[in-house]
């Protein structure tokens, strides 16, 4: 393990009942890296995210983030450690406004005490101001300032995807997990998204791990790629290595083919 290793999975497996979903996963994300996780449908990609974010507990193996184990941590603890995710099927708080969505990601353990909230102390006012400022700042980066007060669920799909990323950023992650951020986006939206992901990585000094079916996006921006098939990592490496890997081509052509 190199010194800058941020997240590492070692021999991590999970099974549901008798069904082995992931087998002996070994993955590593270095700090500052932009990593892709690809694989045919049903390979177990989202399960990897669910394990990392603490929703499922692995049956065996290790899971460490910045040198300390994440095993046994609940999702909110993982999130507070600095791993924040988005969801494949967007899970915004859909009846709340965009700003409120962002505010929830900034709540954490409670930015001020109950008494501060009741007495409206200085702390209360300073956080509420700071939160609105930050929300505005984040929305500006994505060019969505005008939507701050809109109901999140009523916005177009592509915008909801971006707001989910904004919400994740508001939780100040060190590692951002993006679950199919380009799903359902058209060509130009995808291009735009690629630019955005790179931009936020620089600006917020993040590492990013993303699941994606859009090969153009993955090959275009990822520095490292893991390929998952039937719950096992069948290949990993730089995009050009992956493109030529026999096993990968087989996995994709053998099952449902993505747009390689």
């Amino acid at each position, binding site marked *: 393990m190199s010194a800058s290793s941020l997240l590492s999975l070692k021999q991590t497996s999970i099974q549901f009942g008798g069904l082995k979903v992931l087998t002996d996963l070994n993955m590593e994300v270095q700090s500052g890296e932009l990593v892709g996780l690809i694989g045919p449908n049903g390979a177990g990609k989202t399960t990897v995210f669910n394990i990392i974010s603490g929703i*499922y507990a692995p049956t065996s193996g290790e899971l460490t983030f910045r040198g300390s184990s994440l095993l046994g941590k609940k999702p909110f603890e993982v999130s507070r450690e600095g791993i924040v995710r988005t*969801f494949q099927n967007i899970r915004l708080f859909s009846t709340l406004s965009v700003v409120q969505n962002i505010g929830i990601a900034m709540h954490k353990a409670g930015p001020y005490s109950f008494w501060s909230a009741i007495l409206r102390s200085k702390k209360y006012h300073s956080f509420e101001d700071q939160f609105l400022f930050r929300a505005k700042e984040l929305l500006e980066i994505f060019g969505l300032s005008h939507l701050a007060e809109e109901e999140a669920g009523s916005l177009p799909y592509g915008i909801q995807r971006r707001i989910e990323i904004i919400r994740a950023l508001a939780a100040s992650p060190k590692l951002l997990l993006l679950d199919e951020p380009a799903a359902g986006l058209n060509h130009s939206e995808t291009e735009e998204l690629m630019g955005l992901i790179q931009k936020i990585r620089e600006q917020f000094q993040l590492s990013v791990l993303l699941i994606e079916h859009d090969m153009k996006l993955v090959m275009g921006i990822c520095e490292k790629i893991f390929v998952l098939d039937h719950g096992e990592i069948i290949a990993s490496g730089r995009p050009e290595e992956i493109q030529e890997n026999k096993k990968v081509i087989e996995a994709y052509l053998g099952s449902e083919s993505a747009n390689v």
Partner: protein
Amino acid sequence: MEDFLQHVLNGLNLGAIYALIALGYTMVYGVLQLINFAHAEVYMLGAFSIYYSNKWLHLSDHPGWTSFVISILIAVMVCSLVGLTIERLAYRPLRGAPRLNVLITAIGVSLFLQFSGQAVFGADPKLFPQVLQDKDLIQFGQIQIRSFDLTIIGVSLAAMALLHFLIHHTKMGMAIRAVRHSRSSASLMGINVDLMISLVFVLGSSLAGVGAVLVGLKYPKIDPLMGMLIGLKAFVAAVLGGIGSLPGAVVGGLLMGLSEEMVVAYLSSTYRDALAFGLLIVILVFRPSGLFGKYEVEKV
């Protein structure tokens, strides 16, 4: 020791009735994830249906198996109709609505039936017609086995066996199980989901009807609020067994009946109603999925 055996017998009696009613809760929960609060009132209306039909048919003038079977049939029919109507009018319009809304509706239906029952039948207790005579069958020392005890246990077992057959050995039962598994895939397989849900209400309500006659024989005082407590206990029994599980409801019901009888016999009868809820809290702390239930992880 003889005392104890007598209490076991009484507890099994009570438990069989809880089990019958618990089955209705657990089946509806299985397909709709809804605590059907109104189930208890279906049971209450079953009891009243016999009370009123007796005024026409005079079944209690000729107590015996014929009258008993006719009573059961009437109660089953009335309860099925009531169950169907509730499902059709109150729950079906809310298919797809948040679970909380359906739950509130269920509470509303339950209260509505209780209080309109009070308005229509009157709040004072009525005497359930004795359509079957109770006889002393066997007497060992102090243990008394009466014919009602055997009837209650026998009829409940028969009803449960019939349910088991319907659910596991018929095409309809397979369709119900499919709906329970996943409503959307069942409908893709060409199963009429609404029809199956209606059927579940018919089956559950029928069992409540059977239960109503049995309870009526054993404890003949009936009133419009009679369903509330027994319904809650039956629901707790279903949770104890693992909500959604049919064998769980039966075992939960029996355990519930036995433990209640024991509390009354050896501790204090004033705490009998608190027992159910105490038990519930203990289960939820230590084994929220109940004895036979599966703990489901939400899909993300």
